[in-house]
């Protein structure tokens, strides 16, 4: 079975390797979809519904057509004409400048028949609430899961706690909005798309346009963030393609910031009624949760309870709730931050009732052996033993410590890679994956460099194009376990073929050929890599690699410790420091791995304290669809972060993008309790909620 080198033998991998596309990104040379400029390219704008529920009766675009500079108009942008959230696309226009396209939106005359609507999860659950879909209840049938004898366990429990927890709708808010540039050449369509899945989008667009998939090419050289929201083909891509066809010119359609907040995904909210019981000897024995969540007009708002701790008797019942809001989408560890937020607080409450330290209670109930080591390591490094009893500080500003666990599951597979070596020594690796900011392009080059004994800059990684061999979408932290083995496989095969050539030139046996430091050694001789390649002449050595067993794994653990300061005068919570301990198997690039953990934690802080989609119940609209009042943590909200990479190279490569964002909000909530002695059961923990909670005490 395939195997990675030992860590000590690695020349390129598992070091601090700067990303290969960083020079382009720091200089403005990196071209994102938003930056694509084609000759004659038009700029599109979308007309969206101001109403959360309405039937489009008519659209009059005659004034739009007459506006100078307008080149294409679509009045059938909406597939059914029945709008179910404010922000749905109703019409589209392409013009010679973005300013004219925006002017054109004012000239559409749309007649809507407004309908009743409901935008909050609570309101949607009430009897007599307007139905989002006429043929369905808003409250979907509960999915019930159960193990053991829950009621008997509660009856036997020494301590029982219960609470109602709430988490908010969070929008992905990638800085580059969703969008596409579409260009036709006869019946062939090229789409530049800001996506996490060039292959999936290619298939999706072909399907929606009803053209053969091999007529569509999707390119995503660089993309400005997705976090799960850009895994699927977009209606905007199809509209761009239709506008481009109508105008006979390429069309760029990028969503506005407002459209981005409203129409292309979010993390669903949750309402969680949770009850848990523990035995006198500190074992979690009973758990029961009823949860609801809204994913707007779609489903998938589940909460992954009972989370990571071992509990023999448990029951969960979850109902998705339909509301007139934009549909939810996968968002960095779907379902887990919500679950961690309630479960980690429940664990702390049980520990307190049992008179146990929260860490000790977790050690007694955490079935994961890796995490058992991580808890101990983290507690020591963080200084957990200095934690005081709740509400110990006497001044208005109080400090507290808290902790929480993380977990992830998926591995990945299926990637294919083409590697080619040219007579001049050029080496290219082609793979239809994409770099969503995680460093994919860098490790594709680095793995090939490691195998061929070349410096990283000698490899040309070519990704982000559906014309390259298949790789799946970059979601679920699956990219590295899927891509890395395939690149290694291609590189190994390439090396084997080159070894045969080397033996032909130098004699000796293929097993004795060594590729190192840009040279090839065999039979007691050494030549430059280029010298070996020169023997190829005009032939391009082309090798196909694929995902193989044994190089990647799945399932990771982790834990976080945080210290906060709570200002009881203002309700402001400041996260002072976070310690993260995470494993992800063999770490290919330690620098970009730490970056991902930083980012996951900071997004977790942002989710905990700031971000919230705020809906106006009267108009059914989002009032903060911008970046002033949809608040995202910035430089002054960033805590000091200490990262411990828990190496387990023997497990192969595993993704790390998602797990470290899961426990941050939970650990902060526990730290806040430790600081002020008040439980914050609702996210985000904004100053108004903290002050209100303090006043209730």
């Amino acid at each position, binding site marked *: 079975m395939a195997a990675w080198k030992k860590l000590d033998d690695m020349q390129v991998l598992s070091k601090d390797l700067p990303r290969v596309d960083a020079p382009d990104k720091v200089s403005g040379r990196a071209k994102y979809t938003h930056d694509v400029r084609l000759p004659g390219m038009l700029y599109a704008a979308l007309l969206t519904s101001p109403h959360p529920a309405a039937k489009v009766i008519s659209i009059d675009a005659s004034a739009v057509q007459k506006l100078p500079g307008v080149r294409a108009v679509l009045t059938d942008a909406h597939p059914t004409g029945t709008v179910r959230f404010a922000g749905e696309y109703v019409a589209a226009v392409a013009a010679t400048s973005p300013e004219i396209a925006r002017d054109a939106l004012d000239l559409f005359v749309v007649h809507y028949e407004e309908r009743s609507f409901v935008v909050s999860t609570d309101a949607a659950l009430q009897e007599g609430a307007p139905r989002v879909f006429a043929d369905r209840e808003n409250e979907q049938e509960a999915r019930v899961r159960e193990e053991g004898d829950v009621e008997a366990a509660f009856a036997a429990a020494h301590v029982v706690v219960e609470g109602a927890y709430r988490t908010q709708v969070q929008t992905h808010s990638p800085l580059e909005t969703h969008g596409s540039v579409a260009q036709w050449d006869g019946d062939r369509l090229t789409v530049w798309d800001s996506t996490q899945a060039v292959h999936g989008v290619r298939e999706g667009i072909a399907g929606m346009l009803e053209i053969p998939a091999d007529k569509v090419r999707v390119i995503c050289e660089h993309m400005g963030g997705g976090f799960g929201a850009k895994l699927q083909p977009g209606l905007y891509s199809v509209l761009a393609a239709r506008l481009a066809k109508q105008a006979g010119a390429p069309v760029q359609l990028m969503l506005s910031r407002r459209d981005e907040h409203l129409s292309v995904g979010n993390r669903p909210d949750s309402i969680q009624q949770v009850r848990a019981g523990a035995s006198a000897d500190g074992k979690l024995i009973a758990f029961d949760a009823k949860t609801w969540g809204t994913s707007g007009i779609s489903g998938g708002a589940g909460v992954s309870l009972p989370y990571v701790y071992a509990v023999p008797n448990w029951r969960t019942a979850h109902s998705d709730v339909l509301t007139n809001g934009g549909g939810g989408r996968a968002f960095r560890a779907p379902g887990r931050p919500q679950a961690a937020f309630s479960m980690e607080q429940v664990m702390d409450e049980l520990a307190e009732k049992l008179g146990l330290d929260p860490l000790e209670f977790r050690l007694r109930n955490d079935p994961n052996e890796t995490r058992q080591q991580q808890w101990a390591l983290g507690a020591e490094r963080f200084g957990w033993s200095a934690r005081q009893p709740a509400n110990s500080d006497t001044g208005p500003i109080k400090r507290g410590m808290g902790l929480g666990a993380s977990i992830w599951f998926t591995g990945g597979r299926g990637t294919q890679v083409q590697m080619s070596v040219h007579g001049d020594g050029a080496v290219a690796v082609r793979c239809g994956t994409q770099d969503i*900011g995680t460093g994919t392009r860098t490790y594709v080059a680095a793995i090939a460099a490691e195998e061929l004994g070349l410096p990283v800059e000698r490899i040309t990684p070519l990704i982000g194009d559906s014309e390259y061999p298949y790789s799946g979408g970059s979601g679920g932290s699956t990219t590295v376990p899927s891509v890395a083995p395939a690149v290694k496989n291609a590189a190994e095969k390439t090396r084997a073929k080159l070894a045969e050539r080397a033996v032909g030139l130098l004699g000796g046996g293929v097993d004795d050929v060594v590729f190192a430091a840009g040279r090839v050694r065999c039979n007691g001789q050494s030549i430059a890599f280029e010298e070996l390649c020169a023997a190829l002449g005009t032939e391009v050595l082309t090798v196909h690699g694929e995902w193989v067993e044994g190089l990647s794994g799945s399932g990771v653990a982790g834990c976080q410790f945080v210290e906060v300061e709570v200002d009881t005068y203002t309700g402001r919570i400041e996260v002072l420091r976070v310690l993260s301990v995470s494993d992800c198997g063999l770490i290919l690039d330690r620098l*970009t791995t730490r970056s*991902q953990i*930083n980012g996951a934690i900071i997004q977790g802080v942002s989710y905990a304290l700031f971000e919230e989609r705020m809906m106006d119940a009267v108009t059914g609209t989002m009032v903060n669809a911008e970046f002033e009042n949809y608040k*995202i943590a910035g430089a002054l909200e960033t805590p000091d972060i200490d990262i411990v990479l828990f190496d387990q190279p023997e497990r192969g490569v595993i993704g790390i993008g998602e797990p470290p964002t899961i426990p941050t909000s939970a650990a902060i909530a526990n730290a806040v309790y430790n600081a002020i002695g008040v439980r914050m059961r609702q996210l985000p923990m904004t100053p108004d909620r903290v002050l209100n909670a303090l006043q209730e005490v």
Partner: protein
Amino acid sequence: MMKEQSQGGGISRRSFLKGVGGGLVATGTIADELLGQEASAQVDGAHVFKGKQIMALSVNGQRRSVEVEPRTTLLSALRGPLDLTGAKEVCDRGQCGACTVLVDGAPMLACMLLAIDVRNRAITTVEGLDEDGALSAVQEAFVELDGLMCGFCTPGLVMAATALLGKNPNPTSQDIRRGLSGNLCRCGTYPNVFAAVQKAAETMRG
């Protein structure tokens, strides 16, 4: 040449046509004097622009001629006709810093400036930071310490950091956080950015 252009508003050097009482003569195209063309309307001694204009912008040390309307933002002019797409359009409302450019050396938001308003000022975009093709010390430090992930906020952060170090070559950690507090990064790469700015400061101090 750039120095001359960055003097005040340049209005006094403009050749005016005669005013018509207190009223206004509006015409289609009024060109900037920098291209040697005459203004064709004025009111009360002031220069009136309406409709499409050909005017010159001083960008990265070059005088660039560009067609804009009075309402065209600097960001739109940069990213459109000038094809300088380093500055990014993210919020379009001055809330994120992704379009940060230097105007006469000061960090400003290109999305909240009219192009016509800065036609006599020296504009530096991220494309103008390198020296003879080599990355600046700030850019080098961002690369080395991974002060970026998806990279969409990066040009704005690089410009904000450049402006910060231009004013304060020896910043404290809090100076750096405060100096970058107008720039949003959604990937959460701030810790590496802070380290990169500190490192660039050391390099620049020599």
